[in-house]
């Protein structure tokens, strides 16, 4: 069966071990995690976990059921469609030698990114957007030499 990308967002009890239960379920049952993002919500007792996974429709049904079965998962939704917003942030450490610096600045500008660190031979760029946008800027910068890359993974909300 064809695997598709799914974005899951869940509210969980903000307690020790809860993330481990969620992640353990994925590893124990052979499901994939492409990206994972966790942080407290406005209610300090509750955290939001966003997971991007690849699964067939049948597997996805199991994943959702299994997550819902966890005692600490309060609410779970799959995020998709026009009612959802999804964003990711990347920090890109790119080599920036003389002669390349203005080109990099142009690219950053087009993607509405920010230079957050400048060195003699590098920039660190901060950029946010959906997955496609992040991949696009990474592809443009790759030929110039990306030395380090940190991505947050997707966070998502319904409107």
């Amino acid at each position, binding site marked *: 069966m064809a695997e598709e990308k799914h974005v899951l967002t869940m509210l969980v*009890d903000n307690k*020790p*071990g809860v993330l*481990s*239960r969620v992640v*353990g*379920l994925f590893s*124990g049952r052979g499901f994939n995690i492409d990206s994972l993002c966790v942080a407290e919500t406005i209610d300090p007792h509750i955290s939001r976990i966003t997971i991007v996974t690849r699964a067939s429709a*049948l597997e996805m*049904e*199991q994943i959702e*059921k*299994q997550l*819902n*079965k*966890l*005692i*600490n*998962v*309060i*609410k779970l939704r799959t995020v998709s469609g026009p009612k959802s917003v999804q964003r990711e942030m990347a920090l890109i450490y790119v080599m920036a030698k003389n002669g390349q610096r203005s080109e990099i600045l142009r690219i950053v500008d087009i993607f509405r990114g920010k230079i957050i660190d400048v060195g003699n031979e590098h920039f660190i760029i901060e950029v946010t957007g959906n997955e496609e946008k992040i991949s696009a800027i990474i592809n443009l910068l790759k030929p110039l030499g990306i030395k380090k890359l940190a991505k947050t993974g997707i966070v998502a909300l319904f409107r």
Partner: protein
Amino acid sequence: MENNENRILTGAQILMEILKSEGVDTIFGYPGGAVIDIYDELTRTDIRHILVRHEQGAVHAADGYARAKGKTGVCLVTSGPGATNTVTGIASAFMDSIPVVILTGQVPTHLIGNDAFQEVDIVGITRPCTKHNYLVKTVEELAGVLKEAFYLARSGRPGPVLVDIPKDIMKAKVPFIMPKEVDLKSYKPTYIPNQKQLQKIVSLIAECENPVIFAGGGVVLSKGSNELTELARKAMIPVTTSLMGLGAFPASDPLWLGMIGMHGTYQANMSVGACDLLLAIGVRFDDRVTGKTASFAPNAKIIHIDIDPTSIRKTISVSVPVVGDCRISLEHLNRMIDQNELGGLCQRREKWLNRISEWKISNPLSFQQSDIIKPQYVIDSLFKLTKGQAIITTEVGQNQMWAAQYYHFDRPGHFITSGGLGCMGFGLPAAIGAQVACPDKLVVDIAGDGSIQMNIQEMATAVQYSLPIKIVILNNRYLGMVRQWQELFYGKRYSFTSMEHAPDFVRLAEAYGALGLRATKPENVMPVLERGLASDKTVVMDFMVDREESVYPMVPAGAPITEMLLV
């Protein structure tokens, strides 16, 4: 109300208060440094403590107790090795959805994470094999956590819940208030089934010609056996069960097909292969049941009722999924089905039931008597002597399958086996638990010579508490089931399955203070059983059986269940 008084209690005293409020009168356990305070407090209560000889035995005993009594079993062990020794027992209870609360001691909170003496992260270790687990961090939360643990263990799809309690919390004092009813916003099991889905089932039952009911442990756990029996008889639907479902439907009923699956009866597997409607109730379609899933019930519309949504559409696609408690769902169905509307049932089912009885006659469960004791003969004789009234526990392997095939159960709670995990060493401690739960019943552990040695130390427990359990060893000096696979699928290369150096079980029984008996010839079987069953002591009966007898029918792993190897 006494409950609302603000009494200052220690953690250990709070634990006792909660145990009492949960109606716990018996716990199975093993003391150690981290739980001394609990054990000290235990002496000031009426709670009966059964001292096992190994912590694995404590969990299996609590499991057996839970199944025989139909309530939550409790065990208490110390930190570190005490806790790790429970893991196999917990995993077994988890696979079979048995309500057990496991209380583990932990090193004092200030030492957690320091690799302290007898420290282990048991919450981390048991996370994937418990329904839920807790590390208690403060004495203030102790009462609430314990209440939640009991609630989770018994509600919804039951299962083991572990509570890890650091030693200092047992000593700490706090004003005690009995917690209110547990209400978890993220945990609301669905008991009441969707009526529209049930209506679809009623229509399908009315339309079908060749239906089969396939019931499992969920029917036993939800105490829905009577409702199941009523439905089957009302709509004249033959019934098979999984290993875990044995006893959910009376084996003496003409609609009984026998067990389904790898070692199921010919008629059960063939009926499921040919049926046009399969009502699966409280089952999870284990691979030992389905064989090759693509060929499972290929002509049938499948209805699946289960309280756990994850069981539905996990391995088998179904036409009508129903999430709900099995007993309640069956009760609703019985109310909704009008027998008159089914019209001329006897006539309608005649062809189907005839076909089934042809299967039954063509390939019944059978064995060849010889001058060597046949293991099936021992079970058959035990069944006849006990008139099917005993509580049977089993170990795992051939002994388990022969027990399932040749001991016939008319009532639930009488067949206690490690079904999902298939855990050798289960039967003896489970028999101890069952006997403690039901002191007036005959409890028999059907064992093999291999698996009985996995928790043989519990003989001492049985004798210490004068538990008159009977242990039937089908002694073939092989790890029989693996040997059978080696015979059939590995060119008879019996790699390390021959156990020629077992102890003399009769003398071993005597060493423990039990009665030991042995039968070496078929004509000794009945007298040994009669003598053993008549004794009020713990008894070991060692039957020297045909070494290379195999369990048939057998479906090779991964084959369709209708492709059976017959004798």
